[in-house]
């Protein structure tokens, strides 16, 4: 009798344990099929008013880089933007902007207002290229090795700490040896 009435509690404890494990698993990190693969083939014109567009060739020139998916309509992008502007000042690594499903004037105005940290920009107005990149939200940030291999994908806002603790050490490895043993 005692055991029978305890059963619901035990079942719940099991479920709660799984839910707790689930929280720490960060299920939003749906493993990107692209990690370890070369960047997809694409070629995009620059955001209105800029000269350098973005294509596969620009990411395979031997220098590691960051590709940041952004849009003027995306509020979190505005939160992380100062991080990129700061990083751009150090000239440590090229940051490329993939402008996702944006209106040309809006994107251009946005970069003029908040600063333009991007070495190259690609205006993906229809969102087709972003599909090949496996983008499903903005902002997202990819770490790309010098040979064009996608090393990491960060979903949502990149913070100063993430940059200092994860992204920059990895980029420095890549710059020095072309390889890294660090995890994302």
């Amino acid at each position: 009798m005692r055991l029978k009435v305890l059963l619901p509690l035990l079942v719940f404890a099991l479920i709660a344990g799984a839910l707790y494990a689930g929280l720490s698993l960060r299920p939003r990190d749906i493993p990107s099929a692209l990690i370890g693969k070369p960047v997809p083939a694409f070629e995009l014109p620059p955001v209105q008013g800029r000269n350098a567009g973005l294509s596969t060739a620009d990411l395979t020139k031997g220098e590691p880089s960051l590709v940041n998916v952004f849009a003027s309509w995306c509020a979190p992008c505005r939160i992380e933007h100062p991080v990129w502007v700061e990083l751009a000042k150090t000239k440590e690594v090229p940051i490329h902007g993939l402008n996702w499903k944006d209106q040309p004037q809006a994107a251009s105005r946005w970069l003029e207002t908040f600063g333009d940290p991007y070495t190259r920009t690609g205006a993906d107005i229809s969102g087709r290229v972003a599909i090949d990149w496996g983008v499903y939200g903005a902002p997202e940030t990819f770490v790309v090795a010098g040979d064009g291999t996608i090393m990491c994908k960060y979903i949502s806002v990149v913070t100063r700490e993430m940059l200092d603790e994860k992204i920059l050490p990895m980029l420095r490895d890549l710059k020095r040896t072309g390889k890294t043993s660090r995890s994302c």
Partner: protein
Amino acid sequence: MTAELGHFALVLALAVALVQSTLPLVGAWTGNVAWMALGRTAALAQAALALIAFAMLTVAFVGSDFSVVNVAQNSHSLKPMLYKVAGVWGNHEGSLLLWVTILALFGAAVAVFGGNLPMSLRARILSVQGMIGIGFLLFILLTSNPFLRLDPAPVDGNGLNPLLQDPGLAFHPPLLYLGYVGLSVAFSFAVAALIEGRVDPAWARWVRPWTLVAWCFLTLGIALGSYWAYYELGWGGWWFWDPVENASFMPWLAATALLHSAIVAEKRDALKSWTILLAIIAFSLSLLGTFLVRSGVLTSVHAFATDPARGVFILIFLCLVVGGSLALYSFRAGELKAGGLFAPMSREGALVLNNLLLATATGSVLLGTLYPLFLDAITAEKVSVGPPFFNAVFVPLMTPLVVAMAVGPLLAWKRGDLAGALQRLKFAFAAAAIAVLAGWWWLADGPVLALLGLGLFAWVTVGVIVEWAERVGLGRVALRDSLNRALNLPRAAYGMSLAHLGIALTVLGITASSAWQREVLTILKPGDKVDVGSYTLTFEGARQMRGPNYTALQGSFAVAKGGQHLYVLQPETRRFPQPPMDTTEAAIESTLAGDLYVVIGEPDGKGGYAARLYWKPLVIWIWLGAVAMAAGGVVSLTDRRHRVGAPSRQRAQAAAAPAE
């Protein structure tokens, strides 16, 4: 100023909830009447404060006050007024505020309409209700404050997700929450009874109308959400076994079981401990749904913007509420005296079968929903079990349930006569056989499951009529007497019949629309003709047009049947700039016989357009069935015994004679 007022009202509500959850409980313990009475005042005050907070957020949305972060992120000045208002609950923070507001309103309703409850029970119920309130108010104030300001304020807002800009979805969340949160009352009743250590027929009789109210709202909320998915997502589907749909379906299954087990507890003083457990489980599943939607643990199209801090908070809250109440249950359930005995073949027996099947169904959905999570936790594999699992599990569970649904009401309490009941159901047998044969003859290639569905529909429909005829003595007594009896049948009896008919109708809709659907997927150039079902559609071309806050590609299809022009269908693909998103607006011609469903897609660049055309026979009955179920619940609620003769403990025990 409004935002600050709203924030302040929430803080005050928290203070009131603290009082509400402690003093009446202590009062009930020590017999302090003044402290017990405080529960009522506190519940009313909490409702007033929650309403003020909700009104303040609504004012901010209606006035497009973009200095409030929540408004800036989820509204836009060009949005039509309906969606400015609906935007209040179209986001995480606002929808939580709606939760709290509804919770407080239910608390106030218990305070106002619970006059017939014993004072100590009411005080304890309101205390438990206050405790749930504390949890949600803390959740809002600590992690999800909708009243935060933004400086500088943006010129315009981000806009509401265009998929949500739809009248159906404007009302879907409030209905669903009325259901979810309504179950909190049943939960509070159960916990209060456990604290009191007393469950009797009177308790079951009090708890049932509250469960029924919640169940009606939940039924309508789920149906509306499903109907929205049907016409707005443009896939022609209406149920996807998505984790969030499951999150609303599990409490519904549990609440349905609870409604039935409470009858046994009321009439026969049996299944008491089980009924208490179901009341706890039903609300726990509502909370679990909240956790799943807002923690980001499972990926779903419905998931709100997620935040790990929120997930941890809800999980702790979930553990306190569910773990606490189940622990209390395990302490007290042993002390509940088991009630009357009954034979397996009896009304009670049928209701136990109903409960077994519904509980298994609930467990299966829970397993299917959480299995990906378990697997991920153990093996780090990511999977989705999807519709194949649920369909495979559901049909075998629902079939006996629906079969028994016609038999149960014909069985007597205590000891029923199965042979006699089946004997009386001979017409239902005949109807089911005819339906299966007709279906087979008419559409010989139809899947076997479709024949089963047709048979079940006929079985239940005729079974319900037979049961009604039995009650009024049709054919056994003079017609005038039958009529008299029909007029004097308790409303609860009609409510049950209506709800059971609703199930039959939904089964019919599901069966017909899935088995005999016609689907055409093609590229059309202007002037092309397509046959769908018995209709001929002529594509007349497509044009660009402007809406209030979107641009659209609109196609025109002239529909004819037998060479006769009927009407023009104009499906659209809408492009919203803010936030950028495309939505499909299927053109649907809905009739009771079936829906013609047309979706226009991308141009192929060579003058053609992708189009999907469906004929879905009887599909509307899926939702009309749900409406009938909810209507049955409402009819049952208007039964005399809920209005007249406030049951007292002694009288209720005396009145154990079947009133149904």
